[in-house]
């Protein structure tokens, strides 16, 4: 038996399929599978992991890591299922009383998530001046008023990302009062400046603790059932990994990990660091931008389940172009409906009666599954040709929109419907189709780095000190997330000026990332727990 413990299993739980891959120390995909996703999550993960372990046989002992990417948290919010009840404490009254917590939430989400909310004295101004004294009694009175009818607590203080101590004090007040069993979500750990958006993300994070427990438990269960001696990680929005323990505390950070994983996986499989990535599925094409090996993040506030948040998400452009997208045989108009997973029954190519973009590609000469296109009426033929041209134009447009004004970026094509992308496209320097591109998500999960981001407001004169402080905090967060302390580095620095302050002030936001700590059997990664 080999002594090397160099294998990683990557698992991606998608809406339709659960994909799993095994990758060796040299980064080669040595086993892969696609299994149907199950409603209990565990079933799909169990089947996927079992299939790839079967494929590698005795080499299973070389597996030292299991990485999971999932849209489970996103689905919980969108479907309002399995969410916890949250007690929300905002610090900073009388400021911000004009807009109480959850004011703009959809009613059904508010009623399923909010146990109660309060606006109490506390918080800081931009220069650190307290807005009002911290209302410690108010915190305890509010908690008592809910009579235990909540699953988690969310705390959001005005300017807490710059002045974090007060939220920490409230967390320990609450824990002293009701014990350590109730999880507490602090806004300073969740988002940047922007009270409403950060507060929303903090509440959502608190509501997702139960869901996160289910998924982390599912992964731990499968790993234990298989008797794997492996450390487990979760993929997050920015295409980096966090430890299971971290994912359990910051489940909101897994929202958006699906597209991030496919971008990272595409990067890895194609060997490029800067590119446009397109993941063509059955129903949609998701395009993202790879910058220096990471997905480009959106700077615009993102809505999730109808709630505005500002946590970091990959900048994704979705088009209604997929292998199963239905073509109108009369007009040649494209989608947005898709036959989805029923493509193997319904598309013309497979003997069905619904013209799809897959049929259009087959008609144009693309070899798909060794099948040949049945005879179709001339009108349908014309419609399919028009539809393929239209979708090529739409793809070109989308590539141009994302290309940062450059024409020298390659386009990396992954996903099962990749044949819809032509071999040359205006706006792309080359079209790259990596092998194993149809399991890029799972590969992305297995190959990701660990990272952390931190924000800091500072005097402009001392901006270097502010960057240094933020860098230190970001590096610490990356190490907590599993990065190797010897190889973690700052990968991104954003600066924003703040006016109307006594002295010129700058806001810096720093991201650090690094490869995961190298493992040996007797030296497991210990996840540091952040004291809250």
């Amino acid at each position, binding site marked *: 038996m080999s002594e090397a413990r160099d294998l990683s299993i990557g698992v991606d739980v998608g809406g339709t399929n659960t994909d799993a891959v095994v990758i060796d120390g040299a980064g080669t995909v040595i086993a892969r599978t696609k299994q149907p996703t199950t409603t209990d999550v565990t079933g799909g993960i169990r089947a996927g992991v079992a299939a790839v372990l079967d494929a590698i046989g005795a080499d299973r002992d070389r597996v030292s890591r299991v990485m999971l990417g999932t849209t489970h948290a996103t689905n919980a919010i969108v479907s309002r299922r399995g969410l916890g009840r949250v007690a929300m404490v905002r610090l900073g009254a009388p400021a911000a009383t004009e807009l109480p917590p959850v004011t703009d939430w959809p009613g059904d989400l508010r009623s399923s998530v909010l146990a109660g909310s309060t606006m109490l004295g506390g918080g800081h101004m931009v220069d650190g001046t307290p807005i009002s004294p911290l209302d410690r009694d108010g915190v305890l009175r509010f908690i008592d008023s809910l009579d235990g009818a909540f699953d988690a607590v969310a705390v959001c203080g005005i300017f807490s990302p710059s002045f974090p101590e007060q939220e920490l004090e409230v967390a320990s007040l609450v824990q002293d009062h009701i014990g350590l069993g109730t999880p507490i979500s602090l806004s300073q750990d969740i988002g940047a400046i922007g009270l409403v958006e950060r507060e929303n993300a903090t509440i959502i994070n608190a509501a997702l603790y139960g869901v996160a427990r289910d998924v982390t438990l599912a992964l731990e269960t499968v790993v234990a059932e298989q008797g794997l001696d492996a450390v487990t990680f979760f993929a997050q929005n920015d295409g980096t990994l966090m430890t299971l323990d971290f994912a359990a505390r910051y489940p909101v950070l897994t929202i958006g990990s699906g597209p991030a994983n496919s971008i990272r996986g595409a990067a890895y499989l194609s060997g490029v660091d800067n590119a446009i990535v397109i993941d063509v599925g059955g129903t949609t094409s998701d395009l993202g931008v790879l910058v220096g090996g990471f997905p480009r993040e959106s*700077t615009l506030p993102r809505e999730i389940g109808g709630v505005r948040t500002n946590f970091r998400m990959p900048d994704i452009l979705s088009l209604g172009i997929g292998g199963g997208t239905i073509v109108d045989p009369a007009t040649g108009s494209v989608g947005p409906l898709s036959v989805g997973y029923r493509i193997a029954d319904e598309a013309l190519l497979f003997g069905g009666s619904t013209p799809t973009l897959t049929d259009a590609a087959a008609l144009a000469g693309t070899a798909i599954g060794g099948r040949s296109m049945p005879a179709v009426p001339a009108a349908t033929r014309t419609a399919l040709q028009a539809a393929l041209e239209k979708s090529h134009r739409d793809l070109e447009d989308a590539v141009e929109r994302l290309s940062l004004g450059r024409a020298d970026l390659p386009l990396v094509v992954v996903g099962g419907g990749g044949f819809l992308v032509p071999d040359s496209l205006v706006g792309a320097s080359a079209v790259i189709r990596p092998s194993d591109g149809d399991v890029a998500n799972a590969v992305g999960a297995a190959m990701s780095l660990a990272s952390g981001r931190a924000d800091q407001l500072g005097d402009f004169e001392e901006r270097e000190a502010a960057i240094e402080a933020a860098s230190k905090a970001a590096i610490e967060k990356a190490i907590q997330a599993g990065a190797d302390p010897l190889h973690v580095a700052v990968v991104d620095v954003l600066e924003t000026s703040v006016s*109307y302050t006594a002295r010129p002030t700058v806001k810096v936001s720093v991201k650090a990332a690094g490869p995961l700590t190298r493992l040996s059997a007797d030296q497991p990664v210990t996840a540091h727990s952040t004291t809250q």
Partner: protein
Amino acid sequence: MAQQAPPISSPAPTRVTSVTVDDVPALAAGAAIFGTGGGGAVYTAERGVATAITQHGPVPLLAVDDLGPDDAVIVMSGIGAPTVGIEMLPSTHQVQALLDEAERVAGRRITALMAAEIGGSNGVGPVGWAARLGVAILDADGMGRAFPEATMIAMNVAGVPCEFAIMSDVVGNLAVLKTIDLSWLERHARAITVASGGLCLGAHYLLTAETAKGAVIEGTVSTAIRVGHALLSSSEPVAGVANELGASVLINGKVIDVARHTDGGFVRGSVTIAGTGSDRDRLQRIELQNENLVVIEDGEVIVSVPDLVTIVDGETGHAISTEMLRFGQRVAVLAWACDPLWRTERGLELAGPKAFGYDLPYVPFGGEAVAR
């Protein structure tokens, strides 16, 4: 306040007479267009206004000609840094304190609010404050756009004196200022804003039927709502907005460079846009100073302040503020003529290119400004 339904038998009025909760998204989108890149993000103001109208009912919208002898209008606005404005939001008490103090100093009841600037968050917030205070909103503003300084206001162009100003912060401090002119008001207000943590609400310029006429920019609240409705309901939002404004689309293209720095409390810099589609091979540079001020192509000035320049998302038509401009964005640039008041000698002295430090003659955009 009871909801005022129009009588069913009479034909629908062509003029908007109240701002309802359904108008708020349109008002916000329209105000952002009038922000010409500045004026602060409209989102939190939009939510505040929607909440206030839901609680207190629609806000009567008064035309300047509707003002009677007992009416008195005060201008209200938020003052501060957008970055602070998205984090330290106003308190519910702040506007009531402002109104009470303004009535005390003025010695009379105040019946309506007016926005200092229709552009950006200050074009949106006053509607919600009016709902909370139970007063009307005047269908007018002091700029017809957004400007960075207190001196750049229509009443100052028209020579109407500002007798007093009141500022209130989030914790309850009130300051009454009686400055000798608006330059001094700008200086003192800035200092108080800094002392207040970077954000204050202010009330100034008590106006009546006599003083308002000819000294404010009329019809701008209803115009912003109309522009916003065009933006939100059109299948071609950029064309819809341009049409409603009578604006020209200067270029369709992509942002290829954004250069920004902070200087004396202002964000200064420029953005370069490369044309796409039928505008391929064209380049435009827009000079910024909180707002978009000057558009240059092939070394020629095409538009300059006080005419209006707004960069919008090429697809959605939504305005993109200067701090949200990013490399690679698909945009369209809209330009349209300012109010004739700004084209007077005094108007150009206060807010023409030279007032922003550009050594350029002002060339009116689109010929003569169209009278309303």
